[in-house]
């Protein structure tokens, strides 16, 4: 830091938003870093070290950038309010390249080289699945923000948690009551022909059936497809709702061609905003979406009834009323997902405080304290809404938003109940040895 005369004044070095994230360099650097001197003097005030497994490069980079911003904002808020157990939080970012193989290496580096207290922040499912064994092996708590069902499936291990964002199974299931009651009873699904699409293919039909509606056709599109017109004749004429979850660069083409296929006389459209996350809803080619509905985890656009907590969260992260970066309106955020970073960090804070967490020797206590959590009230720490937490499957459950595209923005028209997304647990992590 420089003082007003431009000279270095290390006595004034403090944890700014930037240092909180850039902070810990290599281990050797820490020992000589002037900014850390005062913490090394007393173990009790040494920082809590969070290893942020971040998609800084690779196909997840657009998400990674916003996960980083949200994390920085949450850490600043936590530190400004006194940190965790009176200790400042320090985040160390390691880039996993959105690469499962590299992800496992990064988890290992956090555990052995940086000696972080936890690992946190992974989004892409295949990276979570690739990294989870390394976390289990190192016995380091691994808090992911992925929305995949892999954590709740109990197929990972006892050290993996997803307490800040609901899983896709719950999300899909909780859409069914609204679709059946408001959009239509005969649903045709169009999805990409790989794991992401299979979640929707598998979880939606039983959920709709329970609501007296049905999936009448499922159209799987090869992931490398970039033109879709030839698939549209497969859509049954009696279709009342097209449920679409296409992802990748050809999404805009998909929407445009669907519009050309139907013209003005189309069935209802229901999609997941994953298709257009970080993409301006007013982009050319998306006109056909006007009047259609989307799932959103947290609303991209500011809503008239936003809670003070939601407003404070948006301001802290730096997104404007349109969900884009403040001062950079073309940089559309990943609002539907990134709130999970904020909320996960507050869950970590709560669990560490409950456990009286002091350091890596207390990691098992942290696991058990996290498993003992049951609910998170809506508020500054959980601005997206209230949640329950199932410690047996390490997964939270919360409300979902259904938003309508109208007037060039996404307006929330329905909020689901937590109960809409609950399902029978598929296992119990707590029976596994620590």
């Amino acid at each position, binding site marked *: 830091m*420089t003082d007003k005369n431009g000279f270095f004044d290390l006595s004034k*070095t403090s944890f*700014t938003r*930037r*240092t909180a*994230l*850039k902070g810990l*360099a*290599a281990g*050797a*650097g820490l020992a*000589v*870093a*002037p900014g850390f001197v005062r913490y090394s003097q007393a173990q009790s005030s040494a920082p809590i070290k969070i290893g942020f497994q*971040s998609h*800084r*490069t*690779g*196909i997840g*980079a*657009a998400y990674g*950038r916003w996960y980083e911003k949200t994390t920085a904002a949450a850490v600043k808020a936590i530190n400004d309010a006194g940190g965790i157990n009176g200790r400042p939080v320090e985040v160390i*970012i*390691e*880039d996993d*390249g959105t*690469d*499962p*193989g*590299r*992800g496992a290496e990064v988890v290992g580096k956090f555990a052995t080289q940086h000696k972080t207290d936890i690992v946190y922040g992974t989004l892409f499912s*295949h990276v979570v699945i690739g990294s989870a064994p390394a976390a289990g092996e190192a016995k380091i708590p691994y808090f992911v923000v992925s929305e995949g069902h892999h954590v709740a499936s109990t197929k990972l291990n006892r050290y993996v948690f997803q307490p800040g964002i609901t899983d896709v199974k719950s999300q899909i299931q909780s859409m069914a009551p609204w679709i059946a009651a408001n959009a239509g009873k005969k649903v045709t699904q169009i999805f*990409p022909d*790989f*794991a*992401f699409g299979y979640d929707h293919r598998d979880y939606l039909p039983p959920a709709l059936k329970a609501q007296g509606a049905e999936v009448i056709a499922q159209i799987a599109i090869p*992931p*490398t497809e*970039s033109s879709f017109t030839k698939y549209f004749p497969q859509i049954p004429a009696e279709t009342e709702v097209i449920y679409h979850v296409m*992802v*990748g*660069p*050809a*999404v*805009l*083409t998909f929407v445009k061609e669907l519009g050309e296929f139907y013209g003005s006389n189309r069935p209802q459209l229901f999609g997941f905003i994953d298709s257009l996350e*970080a*993409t*301006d809803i007013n*982009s*050319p*080619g998306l006109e056909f979406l006007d009047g259609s509905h989307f799932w959103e985890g947290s609303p991209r656009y500011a809503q008239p009834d936003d809670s003070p907590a939601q407003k404070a969260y948006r301001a802290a992260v730096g997104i404007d009323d349109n969900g*884009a*970066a403040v*001062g*950079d*309106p*073309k*940089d*559309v955020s990943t609002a539907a997902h990134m709130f999970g970073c904020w909320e996960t960090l507050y869950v970590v804070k709560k669990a560490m405080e409950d456990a009286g967490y002091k350091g890596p020797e207390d990691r098992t206590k942290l696991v058990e304290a996290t498993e003992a959590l049951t609910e998170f009230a809506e508020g500054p720490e959980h601005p997206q809404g209230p949640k329950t937490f199932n410690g047996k499957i390490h997964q939270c459950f919360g409300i979902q938003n259904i938003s309508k595209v109208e007037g060039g923005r996404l307006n929330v028209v329905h909020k689901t109940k937590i109960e809409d997304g609950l399902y029978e647990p598929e296992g119990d992590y707590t029976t596994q040895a620590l």
Partner: protein
Amino acid sequence: MSGRTEGGAVERYRSSVEAFHFLGLVALLACFSSTPAFAHASDRGHVLLLPTGYYVAGGALAVAASFLVLALLPPDALDRFWRRHLPLVAFGDGARTIVSLISFAGFAILIAAGLLGSRDPLSNPLPLAIWTLLWVGLVLLHGLLGDLWSWLNPWYGPWRIASRVFGRGDGERQDPRLPQWLGYWPAFLLFFAFAWFELIDPAPDDPARLAWAAGLYWLLSFIAMLVFGYRDWSRHGEFLTVFFAMVARFAVVERNEEGRLNLCLPGTKLLSATPLPLSGIAFLLLTLSSVSFDGLSKTFFWLGLFGINPLEFPGRTAMISIGSFGLVLMFVLLAAVFALAVIFGQRLAGGKHSLSNAAGLLVWSIVPIALAYHFAHYLTALLVDGQYALAALSDPFALGWNLFGTADMPIEAGVAAGAGSAWRLWNLQAGIIIAGHMFAVLLAHGFAWRLHQLPARAALSQFPLTVLMIAYTVFGLWLLVTPTAG
């Protein structure tokens, strides 16, 4: 960053330590004034909706038309026009040692930052300086301003000092110590290693990993310069010097042997180049093929060939063998097609020149294409990661410093996002790709005139090469519009 298309920087010039990077800043700012784009999936999605087919057809036609027009022009008229220049100031080499020493100090600080600074590749200045400032910004600056690297490289100054300490005198003028048959092969192999590290290695952006790689490369090159002589190793072994010197021949500024700067038309110095040996031909083709492969390797087409789902890209660690194969394959294909074009051209024209002589001369026409690919391919990286570099350089060791007042600057990724940006970026990229190939045709025309005195024969000899250039134009544009992972 690497995979650097998505994502691939800049800084402020405050202390002399940072002089090494000042030129990167100039490059970035020059580009800021022109265009934007950040190639994650949704931005390529905007490009997919553009009428790109017309551009591809138009580009191919423009390159073909330039061949036809040139075939009708008297070559000597063109040659006379092209060789015009405007003399500017003259200056000696006196400051070269100190500039290189400053650059070396900057490099050493960056290496230290790589080892001790932030682990985040977008906060640590080393990956941003190497992959964005150096490999993108400085390459483009060489294409514009000439051979800056002969002054800026971090070896010359230390080598001068070491030579004096060891009493080896001015080795720049010593007799060659590398066997002549080695040609550019050491540089070829080292460039291949560099390209492999950039494009295939699982984590070239990891600050510590890169610090070790770059630091070791500096050390080994320095030892090689002490053993083989600075002049010999930098001209035949140190791949950056070789590459920079080649692309600098396209620049609009040249410095002659008397030290006078001249303003000239782009490519003038290429026209007067002497034929490259086989190793030099291979080197130049490898530089183009590696950038081309960087683009190709992310396309749905390439990934589809190996059954890889681009929407669930398995990451670089899963792509090592496929990537290594592709990097070699791309070079072999380009070299084979280039060789065939030269062979057919010479057969058609029936000239008396040896094939190696013709190929060694005509390969220089690749330089503007390589520069155009470099620009088009890495532009988005330069625009976005350039901002990260500006911020990172203010706080190289993540200690909360703000050396240049840029540490907390907001990173505006929006400069490269959205339909409007995609449109402007695409136009700029397409324009540069097409212009690069038209320059290549122009240069090939000049070289053909040197090889074949009869205009008809000269034109005939270029025909196959022109077909290759049209094809490469189409390929280059296709790389920018086809769906890609990430």
